């Protein structure tokens, strides 16, 4: 029997980016908020400092900052009929853990999606006709437009101090920026970061080929910054320990460096760390959340009553909590009915490794930041005519080399033996003269009827709850897209003077052991129709109106960009709707 805690106005599950944004917005609105976080309290200097944060074995290889699979994991299979098996050690993606969530160990690549991404089905159907889309592709419009989200993108970028060069200011195309982006109401809060040799060389080659390269928008600071909450960040020192690591010198945007110093001292805010929410509690009607139940490290179960429940955990954990708590109808791929677990996606990425003449090129790959790099966007979304190519979707591509850490980044030509004297020589000879982006081609993954999340019938977590089960495989559309993009990408390195460019296409089947970003999306998507979406356009559950679900969970399909910019914008968008509409009249904000 759970012990009951005093009621709060709001219970937030998870204190990462979205949890922090919602907590700060709702405490500003005068509400009494508790955030319940599965992992520990984390802070700069206390838990990561510049005298030990740069430890590749500890953080990159042994995954110290991430959720431990022993705490909970997922099961995975490629196809509906297969038996799913548990992910015993992380591979394809890295579920975050602890205060700050993924904001602690992300690269801080802070993109906006294209205006057409938000009305994807409408846009593609209008341009190419419905038959152009694969029959089992379940892409749909978001129910929210780029114009709706623009002010909220802006808020998130100014919170983070995003560094970049605007490409479209109020409809006017700007030199040096991304000419394909949607119109921005004002420039980035900070100028773009300086670029090392590799990205500079890539950009020059891209220009020679007629592309319009631009610096990747970055949450690693190009200069000291004070955000609108008064919180300060320092300048990035290009240490090359960004993604997988926590920033030790206050120079990467994270909840710790942008919000928590303001949020934590508030009298109407409380954090419970090391406490795992096990379910959302519903009243007997099943239409109203009464709070959440969580378990602390001693195993004691607590009930936290609340008027409003916000799910702000990692994508798939939001979906799992909804399934476990019986919020919304679970998705059934056979009947194509139900919404919770539907339209689950990841990212379609690939790389090229480019070997240059070692007598002429020294790249110092260790001089880098998480979001450094020069990119082109000519082949993203629907920025080009897909008609001749027989696929939809696309991605940005760029020389986005985030590190020269030697366990991870010691590229050798593919025919080199994997060990022995020849391997050793090749490692030595190629380290300084090879370009190997972390994620060179960053392509979209659209949604399909047979890619989804449900509860595993066999495997359970340490608390006895069924694990979430991922059923996912690549579809031809994405593999074609990736071939096309990777070929274009390789041409740029050839133009840059590489002696040899090795293309590493993304190939099926989807492999849970190979890292391919942590951008899991969907599973409880937003939309205008409760038959095909779990959330309305304000991220409010159609079924339980006092439950809001943050994060990439709501993406109906994934675009060719990193998701955090859009995740942050949606959080502010939802928070604004709660503040301006829901609190005045608690109930459904959209009537189906």
């Amino acid at each position, binding site marked *: 029997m759970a012990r009951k805690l005093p009621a709060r106005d709001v219970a937030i599950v998870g204190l990462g980016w979205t949890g922090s944004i919602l907590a700060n917005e709702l405490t500003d609105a005068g509400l009494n908020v508790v955030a319940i976080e599965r992992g*520990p*309290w984390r802070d700069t*200097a206390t838990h990561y400092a510049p*005298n*030990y*944060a*740069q*430890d*590749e074995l500890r953080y990159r*290889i*042994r995954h110290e900052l991430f959720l431990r*699979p*022993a705490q909970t994991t997922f099961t*995975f*299979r490629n196809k509906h009929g*297969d038996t799913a*098996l*548990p992910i*015993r*050690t992380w591979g394809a993606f890295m579920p975050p853990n602890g205060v700050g969530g993924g904001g602690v160990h992300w690269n801080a690549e802070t993109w906006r999606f294209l205006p057409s991404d938000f009305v994807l089905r409408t846009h593609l159907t209008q341009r190419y006709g419905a038959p152009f889309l694969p029959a089992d592709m379940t892409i749909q419009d978001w129910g929210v437009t780029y114009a709706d989200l623009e002010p909220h993108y802006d808020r998130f970028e100014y919170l983070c101090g995003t560094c970049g060069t605007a490409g479209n200011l109020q409809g006017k195309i700007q030199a040096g920026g991304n000419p394909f982006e949607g119109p921005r109401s004002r420039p980035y809060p900070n100028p773009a970061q*300086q*670029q090392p*040799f590799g990205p*500079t060389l890539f950009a020059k080659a891209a220009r020679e080929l007629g592309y319009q390269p631009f610096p990747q928008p970055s949450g690693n600071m190009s200069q000291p910054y004070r955000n609108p909450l008064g919180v300060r960040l320092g300048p990035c*020192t*290009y240490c*090359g320990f960004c993604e997988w690591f926590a920033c*030790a*010198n206050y120079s990467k945007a994270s909840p710790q460096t942008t919000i*928590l*110093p303001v949020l*934590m001292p508030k009298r109407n*805010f*409380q*954090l*419970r*760390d*090391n*406490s795992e929410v096990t379910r959302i509690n519903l009243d007997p009607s099943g239409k109203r959340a009464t709070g959440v139940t969580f378990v602390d*490290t001693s195993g004691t179960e607590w009930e936290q009553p609340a008027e409003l429940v916000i799910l702000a955990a990692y994508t798939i954990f939001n979906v799992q909590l909804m399934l476990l708590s019986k919020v919304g109808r679970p998705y059934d791929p056979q009947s194509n009915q139900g919404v919770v677990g539907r339209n689950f996606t990841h990212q379609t990425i690939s790389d090229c490794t480019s070997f240059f003449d070692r007598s002429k090129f020294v*790249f*110092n790959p*260790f*001089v880098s930041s998480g979001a450094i790099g020069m990119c082109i966007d000519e082949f993203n979304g629907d920025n080009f005519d897909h008609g001749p190519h027989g696929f939809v979707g696309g991605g940005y591509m760029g020389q986005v080399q985030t590190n*020269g850490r*030697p*366990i991870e980044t*010691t590229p050798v030509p593919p025919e080199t033996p994997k*060990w*022995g*004297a020849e391997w*050793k020589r090749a*490692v*030595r000879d190629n*380290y*300084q003269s090879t370009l190997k982006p972390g994620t060179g081609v960053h392509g979209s993954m659209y949604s399909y009827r047979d890619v989804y999340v449900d509860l595993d019938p*066999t495997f359970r977590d340490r608390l006895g709850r069924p694990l979430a089960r991922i059923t996912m495989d690549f579809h031809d559309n994405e593999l074609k897209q990736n071939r096309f993009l990777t070929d274009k990408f390789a041409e740029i390195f050839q133009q840059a003077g590489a002696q040899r460019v090795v293309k590493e296409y993304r190939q099926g089947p989807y*492999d*849970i*052991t190979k890292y391919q970003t942590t951008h899991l999306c969907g599973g409880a998507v937003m939309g205008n129709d409760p038959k095909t979406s779990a959330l309305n356009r304000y991220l409010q559950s159609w079924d339980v109106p006092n439950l809001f679900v943050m994060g990439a969970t709501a993406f109906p399909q994934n675009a060719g960009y990193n998701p955090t910019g859009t995740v942050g914008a949606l959080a502010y968008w939802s928070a604004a709707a709660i503040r301006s509409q829901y609190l005045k009249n608690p109930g459904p904000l959209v009537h189906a």
Partner: protein
Amino acid sequence: MTLRRRDLLTGTAIALVGNRLAGAEVIAGKLPWTPDAGTPPTPVKPGPWEYFTAAEGSMVEALVDRIIPPDPQTPGGKDAGCAVFIDRQLAGGYGHHEGLYNLPPFHDGSIQQGPQSAKGPAETYRAALAALDRYCRSQTGNDAGKGFVQLAAERQDEILRGLESGKIKLEGVDGEKYFKQLLEDTQQGFFADPIYGGNRDMCAWKMIGFPGARYDYRDWVTRHNERYPHPPVSIAGRPAWTPGKG
């Protein structure tokens, strides 16, 4: 050069970590902080094997020295400390799947579904090293009865190639899988911070020109195509940190 292990073991830092793990907390009204806060790493202790038997230790030294052979500029796996690294890793959490999902049932699945073994690396090493030794000693001809350690380098390489390709089968152990693991562990030991026992004197970092645990390259971002001149630094420092030794 050495970290103050005594401080690490007795210091407040460790006590704090212990407290953190002890239980959930309510944090309100403040940004928590205490003096000596931190979660610094624990450097390995030099000295005898912690996991391997003496025989296993010499076998792994021989193995890592073929995976990364010495050359005139850079030590091989043995002198770089890769065997010590693996020993200390196997003795620690890595050796027994600490933190990983280890609940049954255990079934083999597709490659895409990832490793499904109930056995941790420590157990695997023990079984694989014994099986490899048995394999070597069971050969006939000139090398009849010799263990892996006694074999000539060329013959050792031949055996490793056999394991790698799957041509040599070990009794009771998947030799191909084990070799992959050994390869990974050895190379990690070679390139990880020297506090973990490998990469002795930062030899691997010097070999490729990686400056190690530095944290400030502001002056170098726009110095294109120019070799970075400063020596590597470990979390334990470098010789120049000690007065009179620079």
